């Protein structure tokens, strides 16, 4: 079957495929270009190469089980996806989250946002020839991912945020590690500002290229840094504050012209603001009491002793469960046993704990939100990341739909590159931060 572009193209113009396996097409996307020399007359964007049937799969998984799938949406900021999904469920069931968990969620979201922006701009800079910037930014991202790795146990597929709170408390040296990440990121941002802001080559490829007007951006449903680059200060964190964002002070950087350069600049400035939020979170966490953990019985020993009598001493958990001891549970997870995995100590040593553990994971039991439908959104790396969930009262969603922010951004690509050169596709596409996992779902 011929595509729309093939039907429309003029006979004398040249049709060229960019992608789906082009190195600059982050993930896989196909852009068909109709060219006159190097000028783009028309184009057609074909998406779907990374379609995994996320929504269909989710309909067949329990609310708890499907959490890891949300990591794989925007895989550079998986924690924000976790937060978005989990908070949608919490809105549906009306679950309150402890303050410490809320602060941790904000902290992790902002670190993810920084890593998201760093990755986007690193790729954008590299594709326009600034390889140094790429390396610098990857270095900064490493420090951030060290924190994420030490906290969640994984670098990318975190599954750290849980319904009712977070999986585990922050690791003991988090203050130093996050502090180090902040210092290093600031340094890198300063270097990158110096390398790119007034760089003639970078400016030529970004300034006044692919200009988006505010009206057009709204018509395309743009949100996030791309919308803000056109001068509209819409940020979900300010417009519909969730978690503790209303208690934090930060600004929404906006652009003026809505071109590639503004999209770059807004992201750079947003990272500064995110670092501010991270610092405030560290301060807030310092003020909260952290539970004292004592060593205890080996799990096998605790199980053996509990056959006759429930042991009084605390149980030492496996290193894999570090941070989710019973003593830290009140700080990181809601107290409602219907929605939260019982502490391992209870599951090991008491019949009630074991029953609630089984009830939580058994088919048809688990988390069963009431019938209804809900939409909730958080500010993702690319914009408003919304989940629409229809529940029929069972333990798995009847319908789960993701509002992917970059879906709407990439939909405008055809219009943005019309009339520009082939080489302009690269920075334009880079500044959009298309994430295949999120776009194609």
């Amino acid at each position, binding site marked *: *079957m011929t595509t*729309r572009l093939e039907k429309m193209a003029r006979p004398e113009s040249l049709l060229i495929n960019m992608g789906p396996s082009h190195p600059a097409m982050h993930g896989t996307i196909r852009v068909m270009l109709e060219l006159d020399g190097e000028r783009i007359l028309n184009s057609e964007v074909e*998406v*779907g190469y990374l*379609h995994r*049937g996320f*929504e*269909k*799969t989710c309909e*067949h998984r329990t609310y708890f089980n499907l959490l890891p799938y949300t990591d794989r949406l925007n895989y550079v900021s998986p924690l924000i996806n976790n937060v978005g999904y989990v908070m949608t469920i919490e*809105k*549906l069931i009306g679950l309150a989250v402890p303050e410490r968990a809320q602060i941790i969620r904000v902290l992790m979201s902002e670190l993810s946002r920084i890593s998201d922006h760093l990755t986007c701009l690193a790729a954008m800079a590299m594709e326009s020839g600034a390889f140094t910037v790429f390396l610098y930014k990857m270095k900064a991202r490493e420090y951030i991912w060290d924190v994420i790795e030490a906290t969640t146990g994984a670098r990318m597929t975190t599954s750290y945020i849980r319904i009712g709170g977070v999986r585990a408390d922050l690791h003991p040296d988090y203050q130093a590690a996050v502090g180090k990440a902040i210092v290093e990121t600031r340094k890198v941002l300063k270097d990158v500002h110096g390398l790119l802001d007034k760089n003639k080559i970078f400016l030529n490829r970004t300034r006044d290229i692919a200009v988006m007007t505010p009206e*057009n951006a*709204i*018509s*395309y*449903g743009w*949100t996030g840094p791309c919308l803000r680059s056109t001068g*509209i200060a*819409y940020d979900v964190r300010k*417009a*519909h504050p969730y978690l503790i964002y209303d208690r934090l002070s930060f600004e929404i950087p906006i652009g003026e012209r809505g071109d590639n350069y503004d999209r770059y600049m807004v992201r750079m400035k947003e990272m500064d603001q995110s670092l501010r939020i991270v610092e405030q979170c560290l301060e807030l966490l310092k003020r909260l009491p952290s539970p004292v953990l004592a060593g205890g019985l080996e799990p096998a020993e605790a199980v053996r002793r509990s056959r006759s009598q429930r042991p009084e001493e605390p149980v030492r958990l496996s290193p894999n469960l570090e941070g989710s001891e019973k003593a830290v549970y009140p700080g990181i997870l809601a107290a409602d046993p219907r929605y939260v995995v019982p502490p391992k100590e209870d599951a090991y040593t008491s019949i009630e704990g074991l029953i609630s553990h089984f009830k939580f994971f058994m088919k048809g039991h688990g988390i069963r939100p009431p019938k*209804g*439908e*809900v*939409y909730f*959104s958080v500010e993702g790396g690319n914009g*408003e990341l*919304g989940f*629409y969930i*229809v529940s029929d009262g069972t333990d798995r969603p*009847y*319908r789960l*739909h993701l*509002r992917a922010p970059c*879906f*709407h951004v990439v*939909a*405008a690509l055809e*219009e943005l590159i019309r009339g520009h050169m082939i080489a302009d596709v690269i920075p334009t596409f880079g500044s959009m931060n298309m994430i295949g996992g999120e776009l*194609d*779902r």
Partner: protein
Amino acid sequence: MEEKKILETLKEKFPNGVLETTALLGDETALVRRDDLLEIVDYLRKKPFAFNLLLDMTCVDFPGRHDRFEVVYHVFSLALNRRLRLKLCVPEDEPVDSLIRFWKNADWLEREAFDMFGVPFRGHPNLTRLFMYDGFEGHPLRKDYPLRKRQPRIALRSPE
């Protein structure tokens, strides 16, 4: 604008077009008649509401109901900082009016809904599959599409 005013005004303005309004969990929802969709959207986009952003559009499949599909729109007003959910019920194979004249992102959103559910949109200039390929059989997000269904192989496209 007061909390309940949007839905109330909408109901007053379109007594026949708006079938039902709810505000469960703070999500304001209006169930609208399929024939009045364009008129209602046009009204909502104007001042004082100015719902100028189409946040999202999706479908929900309820096999067994007379109106099998529920098309769900989420619109957002930057001026009021309010979201609104519009829903309409559609029987199988009946068309829905395309919103492409109001919002440009309706293009891809409607293509996605057509791809995943097979809901046709009247007035869409290029209603083809978005995520799936040509030659894909069925609509994967319908409830009667099995999770592990295999697709037939498609012929290799030969260069012309």
